[in-house]
């Protein structure tokens, strides 16, 4: 069929309004839950939980509908191109979200902390906390009573001890998994479903190992290193950057888990597997963010 005359425009849909309602619930739920933190008799987290249930439910039905429509042949090539554009720009928006945090880390390391320590053009700032010395990772904060610095940091150890350093194994897992998902996609394109399934399972395993190792690292940080969210700007940037990355790895892992399940149930064909392709782009994106993150958070 000619692609121009058959662009599928759904007549009307109840899905978006349910999504909008669940986001409205989410805002009140999240807002009250966070404002009520530490209060015993608060019920607001139930609003939050129900908003999540509603959101996931709506997403389930939304994606089912899209899959159903696609399977019944309603989607033209042009519409699939729209999905490709949509996913690419969505990933670009995610890149810019991380950019904000990289910008923050750069500003803090290049300007704010040295100035507080009396170096550079605005070193006059040192009069706020005389005697504060700038260093990175920042182990002693200007007001160490209020923001007690960490005892240990996560920076890269000497090369001989690299095997004891969790981020090394994390990097290995994530970079490898980026390769294995490419292999899975390539196998699917050749209609080698056995290899496709195998590589998907390998990818997922590596992804879950990453999540587990990252949790171990957070546990170590809180339990043995004094490295917390409240440990000044080093802890702040460390947790927020690795945390948001970890959150995106979890999202990617959920997407890929669903794609794997669908793959095992016989979904996708050599030419029609946009859900998997989009998931794999997302996975490559979290991989690239991780590499940049290792460089600026752990190594340099």
């Amino acid at each position: 069929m000619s692609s121009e005359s058959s662009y599928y425009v759904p007549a009307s849909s109840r899905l978006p309004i349910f999504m909008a309602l669940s986001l409205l619930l989410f805002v009140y739920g999240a807002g009250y839950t966070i404002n009520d933190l530490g209060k015993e008799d608060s019920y607001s987290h139930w609003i939050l939980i129900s908003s999540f249930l509603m959101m996931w439910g709506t997403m389930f039905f939304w994606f089912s509908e899209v899959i159903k429509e696609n399977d019944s042949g309603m989607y033209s090539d042009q519409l699939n191109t729209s999905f490709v554009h949509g996913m690419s720009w969505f990933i670009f928006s995610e890149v810019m979200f991380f950019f904000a945090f990289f910008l923050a880390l750069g500003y803090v390391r290049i300007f704010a902390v040295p100035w507080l320590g009396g170096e550079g053009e605005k070193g006059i700032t040192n009069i706020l906390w005389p005697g504060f010395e700038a260093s990175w990772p920042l182990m002693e904060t200007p007001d160490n009573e209020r923001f007690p610095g960490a005892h240990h940091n996560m920076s890269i150890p000497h090369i001989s001890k690299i095997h004891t350093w969790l981020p090394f194994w994390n990097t290995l897992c994530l970079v490898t998994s980026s390769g294995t998902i490419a292999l899975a996609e390539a196998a699917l394109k050749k209609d080698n479903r056995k290899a496709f399934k195998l590589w998907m399972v390998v990818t997922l395993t590596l992804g879950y190992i990453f999540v587990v190792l990252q949790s171990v690292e957070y546990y170590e940080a809180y339990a043995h290193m004094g490295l917390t969210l409240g440990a000044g700007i080093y802890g702040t940037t460390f947790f927020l950057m690795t945390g948001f990355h970890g959150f995106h790895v979890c999202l990617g892992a959920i997407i890929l888990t669903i794609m794997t399940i669908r793959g095992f149930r016989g979904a996708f064909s050599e030419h029609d597997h946009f859900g998997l392709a989009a998931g794999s782009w997302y996975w490559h994106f979290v991989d690239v963010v991780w590499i940049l993150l290792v460089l600026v958070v752990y190594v340099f």
Partner: protein
Amino acid sequence: MSAVIESHHDDHHHGPAKGFSRWLYTTNHKDIGSLYLWFSFIMLFVGGAMAMVIRAELFEPGSQIVSPEFYNQMVTNHGLIMVFGVIMPAFVGLANWMIPMQIGAPDMALPRLNNLSFWILPAAFGVLLSTFLMEGGAPNFGWTFYAPLSTEYAPPTVTFFIFSVHIMGASSIMGSINIITTILNMRAPGMTLMKMPLFVWSWLITAYLLIAVMPVLAGAVTMMLMDIHFGTSFFNAAGGGDPVLFQHVFWFFGHPEVYIMILPAFGIISHIIETFSRKPIFGYSSMVYAIASIALLSFVVWAHHMFTVGMPIAGELFFMYSTMLIAIPTGVKVFNWLSTMFRGSLTFETPMLFAIAFVALFTIGGLSGLMLAIAPADFQYHDTYFVVAHFHYVLVPGALFSIVAAVYYWLPKWTGYMYDEVLGKTHFWLSFISVNLTFFPMHFVGLAGMPRRIPDYAMQFADYNMIVSVGAFLFGLSQLLFLFNVLKCVYYGKSATAEVWEGAKGKGLEWTVDSPAPYHTFETSPDLTKPQTNS
């Protein structure tokens, strides 16, 4: 396959659904465009009412009507609503209505996402407005929400503010993804990029800016949330962070944001001026390149909002020069508009009046912007009413006038009826006089040192402030005339022709379809590779 095509035809041939659920479930770009425009219109009166409270308080020196705390809430929410609730949704509404018609597409590329982008917007503003009823009152830290005012010293409702900004951002990002995908993927055959109408071009670039900077805003409010509730120290020097970091992150978003609010206006004004000059636009490709250069430059000028905050001198110089560079592409656009009008057969219908006022008054706003860009001079102007005058000149007779002009220009195409020209011209002249009465004297009190965001002022500013307030009330009332004119057009207007304007011949695909435009405009894309008759 035939069954599929039949069901697809069913979708296309039915008209709008009956009843209120039509608006809840719709996936039609025209319905969603109307929703955006009505939402923005309602918010204009909500945000406008807040401006009236501000001007009533400032009518005379001394504490008059509201408490300083409530005054702060008014200033904050007036800004937030006008930026995120009026100007941006209005432009997205126009994009929804016009882009598919101008590029010959059947609808937006992702119709269900389109519905979602709209409906989360009332949710976000519902949350924001509901904070007025909560303990501690609504956000009161200014629309720029600088830390630590918005973190350590913020009311507890800041949490709701943060999440509602997240939702507004999500709405903008999804809307922009849809617009950019529509433009890149849904153009009629033969419509190459450099043949696209300028409104489409301006939105392509605007959508790119939105996708690039809205996530940065989300990052900024997330850092605030963490600082307030989870003990981090992004914006707290005691932990090694820096309150100035907030301003850098915010303005990295904020400066592209102000161009997001003006670039679509450039597209609209180009169309209106060429139509009522009965000439094609002068310098089409230079218009495209000018918009693109303005957009790219907007990423490297942000710190001109923070000259007085304590930046290294190299930074001040860099941001001063890069800011001044923007005057060049902007000047190109202004001179192109003037050249289009030069020796044209001009007529002055309401849209054209607003468009000419836009060119004149936006240029005033641009020139005061150039004054503010001079770092040493900015030390004098910073945080005075001169700044307020500057950005209101680019946003009210700039962005808002362009939206009003667009509504008058395309309303006959949307509704099938003509608006009342006498009422339209009355609306224009009242708006034109009152907008200058409101914002021009602000330059004088600003240069004389009147600070912004303060509910009281020194005696010597009293006369000018009274003039400003009278102008503001008049401007507010004139907009009721606009509402009346739109409603009169919808219910009692005379029928409009397909071409609507004499000068619209050959000025775009939207004038080749009936007025009102059919519910589904181009079921089959027009083939522009063949010579156009444009009947």
